[in-house]
């Protein structure tokens, strides 16, 4: 019995280790794969995604107030360049850092996630595949620490 339990337990552990290894390895992209920037349709795709995202923000009572003093066209251009850079497009974002932009805004965890949901809505409206959406979010998620509660 004990042997069987141990065997089963080790099987589960082995499976989890394999899973973790594949999770780690999937970070290495082969050169032939299109970049996320290309997958969302390059410059035109990116611009339409950001426009849909701005529409989502404009319709959200909770998030819109954060943009009360923002210049929309400045935000639009900055976000396009930043996303283009983050998604391996041919851009080099030289604008204000995430910390500079969000300092003083005191964005809560909940409101950060709400913005993530608005971006997901925009990506879905733009017809971006579920798996591509997840990979885009994986690129943006590490920035959270430079955005919230500052």
């Amino acid at each position, binding site marked *: *019995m004990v042997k*069987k*339990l141990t065997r*089963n*337990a080790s099987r*589960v*552990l082995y*499976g*989890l280790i394999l*899973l*973790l290894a*594949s*999770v780690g390895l*999937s970070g290495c992209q082969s050169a032939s794969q299109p970049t996320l920037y290309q997958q969302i349709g390059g410059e035109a795709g990116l611009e339409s995604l950001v426009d849909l995202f701005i529409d989502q923000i404009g319709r959200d009572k909770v998030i819109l107030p954060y943009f009360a003093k923002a210049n929309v066209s400045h935000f639009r251009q900055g976000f396009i360049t930043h996303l283009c850079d983050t998604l391996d497009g041919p851009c080099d974002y030289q604008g204000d850092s995430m910390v500079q932009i969000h300092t003083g805004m005191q964005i*809560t*965890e*909940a*409101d950060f*996630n*709400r913005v*993530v*949901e608005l971006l*997901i809505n925009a990506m879905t409206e733009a017809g971006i*595949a*579920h*798996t*591509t*959406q*997840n*990979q*885009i*979010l*994986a690129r943006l*998620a590490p920035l*959270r*620490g430079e955005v919230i509660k500052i």
Partner: protein
Amino acid sequence: MKRANLCRFVLACCALGISTPGIAGSGKLLATPGVSQVEGSAGGGIVPWAQLAGYASEEQWSLGGFCSRASVDDYRLDVCGIQANLFDRVELSYAEQSFAVPALNTDIEQSVSGVKVRLYGDIVYSTWPQLSLGMQHKSLKDDAVAALLGAEDDSGTDIYLAASKLHLGALGGFNTFWNITARHTEANQLGLLGYGGQQGSERIYLEASTAIFLSQNLALGYEYREKPDNLGLGEQQWQDVFVAWFINKQINITAAWLDLGSIAGQSDQTGWYVSVTGYF
């Protein structure tokens, strides 16, 4: 509270939750709290996870309720429970289980009070897995069957440490989840057959879950729970394969295929599991 009353209360809460969304916190991303496990904690179906029940983020609270049914060859387990999430730091839960044993023409009833504290992290955003420490105090209403089988106690307390992580876009672009839980327990079949026994030995048991999100709303997963064999009746590990459907942040439904091994001498107990959780 009688189990039937608790069940009615939970269903009423679910209905209220669906009809009046937005009273409580909804600051977490869809599906990230998981579902409800059979002892009342947030988790999968059989394993408690590091996430706390409900969608409350650190500045919010939430309340939830669930009912589940597991039906295998010779037994049936019905559970209903309620859960509170305080500021994504503490989860409080209470569940009532009713375990039907048709062969003995009896129902074994047990209540479970749980508390879980999030020690570190967030399953989506932190570098390391989210980590929580939990406790489940379980108490049988009537220990006649447990005593007959040689159990030492009619109540017991499990303590567990759980680590969970969601990897965004990890496997072929699909979000991938895993959880590992280490539990110290003396419970025989969740405690429904009492606590401890002649073959009992104090140790920590391993539980694990993994899931892949086929869409934002739909997860497909597998769970494993190692268990003691204190009574010498050949108690075995539990396993299940599950599908969880997160309709929205108010309600989710889980269906699973169970392999519960041998229960009180009846071998190969397999069957089905259905669970509904509502938050408001």
